[in-house]
């Protein structure tokens, strides 16, 4: 395992994607510390505020002051020469670090509480886009990990067992898998969503989405894993274990699983983007995470407003960039892992 990590770090793309992902996950973990405002604090006086510029002024960090030019737009312009002081590790709103430790300190806070400070602008109700982005990353970043765990566990169980036993179990399991793969996933997704969603409250939607995405995804994994366990089953060490009277579950866990581990690792890394994109698309269509929770797809769906296009409120599209960076980091890491684990699997 540490060997693998060392190999990944030797490659520039590997280390770049690894650093990006670690930074993203740290950000999600320490969301309260990094955010500048509570995730749902509205400020109707400052809707659609542009990102406030942070500069070095008077021997300290400072934020540019803006004034309203046109209330109807609304349009703002910077007031030349006027700045407000920002402090590092300054007290701000209350939050719980890692959900446990009650704290007030934040990475960056204005010295006066009435200072307008939006690192990435504000949305239609004056909420801080940056803070929502940081909090929203929790949904987008964990959904892939949880989803892929469920998918791989199901796939391994069904695929591994049917590959091991063969015969009738294999036949029925594979017909089931083929059936799931034949149903257009989009309709399955919509239908499952309409069944599950009303049974959960809106803050449990996260669970619903994970369940839906993994229920759709496991069939493909099961098929591949079945093929692999079928070929491993014929090897001598499995036959030997069988002769010595080891049970099927033991063989699956001790002999077949370790041989599938490298494939599982690569496949999992390369499948995570699918979950991130799936959640984003669902939330974007209004079928996923709902207000007041925050997620990148949800934020983008609120950017779908002709006013935003016409008046060039580009900062509301930053969640798209965040999704892009996350997905590309996972894809790169997956490719590098694949190169390390099995150079022959390399296609490009």
């Amino acid at each position, binding site marked *: 395992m540490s060997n693998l990590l060392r190999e990944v770090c030797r490659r520039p793309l590997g280390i770049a994607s690894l650093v990006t992902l670690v930074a993203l996950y740290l950000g999600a973990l320490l969301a309260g510390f990094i955010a500048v405002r509570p995730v749902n604090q509205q400020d109707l006086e400052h809707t659609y505020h542009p990102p406030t510029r942070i500069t070095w002024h008077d021997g300290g960090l400072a934020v540019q002051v803006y004034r309203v030019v046109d209330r109807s737009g609304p349009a703002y312009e910077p007031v030349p020469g006027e700045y407000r002081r920002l402090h590092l590790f300054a007290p701000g709103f209350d939050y719980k670090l890692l959900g446990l430790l009650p704290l007030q300190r934040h990475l960056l806070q204005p010295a006066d509480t009435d200072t307008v400070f939006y690192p990435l602008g504000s949305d239609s109700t004056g909420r801080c886009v940056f803070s929502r982005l940081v909090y929203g990353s929790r949904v987008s970043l964990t959904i892939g990990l949880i989803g892929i765990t469920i998918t791989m566990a199901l796939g391994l169980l069904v695929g591994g067992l049917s590959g091991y036993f063969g015969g009738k179990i294999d036949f029925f399991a594979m017909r089931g898998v083929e*059936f799931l793969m034949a149903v257009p996933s989009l*309709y399955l997704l919509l239908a*499952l969503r309409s069944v599950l969603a009303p049974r959960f409250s809106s803050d449990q939607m996260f669970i619903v989405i994970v369940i839906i995405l993994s229920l759709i995804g496991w069939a493909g994994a099961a098929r591949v894993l079945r093929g692999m366990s079928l070929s491993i089953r014929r090897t001598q060490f499995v036959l030997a274990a069988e002769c010595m009277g080891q049970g099927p579950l033991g063989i699956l866990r001790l002999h077949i699983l370790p041989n599938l581990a490298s494939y599982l690792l690569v496949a999992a890394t390369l499948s995570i983007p699918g979950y991130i994109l799936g959640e984003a*698309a669902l939330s974007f269509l209004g079928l996923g995470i709902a207000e007041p929770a925050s997620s990148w797809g949800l934020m*983008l769906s609120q*950017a*779908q407003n002709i006013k935003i296009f016409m008046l060039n409120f580009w900062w509301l599209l930053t969640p*798209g960039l965040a999704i*892009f960076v996350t*997905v590309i980091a996972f894809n790169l890491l997956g490719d590098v892992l694949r190169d390390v684990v099995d150079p022959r699997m390399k296609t490009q």
Partner: protein
Amino acid sequence: MIAFILRRLLTLVPLLLAVTLLVFVLMTLAPGDFLTPIKMQRDVPAGLIEQLENDFGLNQPWYVQYARWLGNVVQLDFGYSWSFKVPVVDLIGQRLFATFLLSLFSMLLAWLVAVPLGVLAAIYKDSIFDRISSFLAYAALSVPEFFLALLAVYLAARTGWFPLGGATSIEHDFLPLGAQIVDRAYHLVLPVIVLGIGGVAGLMRVMRANFLDAIRADYVQTARAKGVPEGWVMFKHVLRNAINPLISSLGFAFSGLLSGSLVVEIVMNYPGLGNLIYQAFLREDQFVVLASILLSCVMLVIGNLLADLCLAWSDPRIRLENQDS
């Protein structure tokens, strides 16, 4: 050959039964039905609701509803849309054309751009062109489709070069035929590009990899050794072998022809099939949902069949009859 095709088509029957049954059960399990919004209104008399329920057959248990629907479908009667009050076949027919145009052109775009780009990237491997195009393909595969669509709408709104949505402009019906075609094409530009970009990136990567594999083959060396000109080697020998896997992907593309564009259609407000199905699902307009699921399952199976047939046609080494065993 014909036996193979027939056998493949026969597998459609249990598949369609199972899929429609599954969706039917799921839709019944979901709370509420098409009449729920009407029941919520206080000024609708109870008698009317009862009558509507009776008309739609919603007061029957689900298996009776399913059996009735199945009985009608066997007689090629797909029912009518509850929300649009027109036969489902007509409704889908109207939208089918729009989605078909969109998918067809984005596929054409993907092929026409991706194949030459992939070939060039493979011939000039590790050149600056190869690096840039590989990077762009990588990036294109990582952008969510709906975000691209959103950016396209943003571009249209900022510059005014393209229409903001729809398939035709308001005055479309009053224009002469030539202008109507131009109008449609003008509205198609942005959706086609948005849908095509993902296809270009995916196809290009596959094309490049296949071409690189084929270049190393022995018959290429032989061809060069006997003095065949380099361009002839590339196009007559390498390309024809490298393009095989792509031809089978053409069949798969066919299966996604009608359902692949849902998100883009919704964001860009394009009146296609995806948009219709999405709305029908939200309103629980049963017959529209079931008919469109039938349609896309059939497309999926036919698409896979086409993929196998295309591959057998382009590569004589593949025998269809042995594939099932």
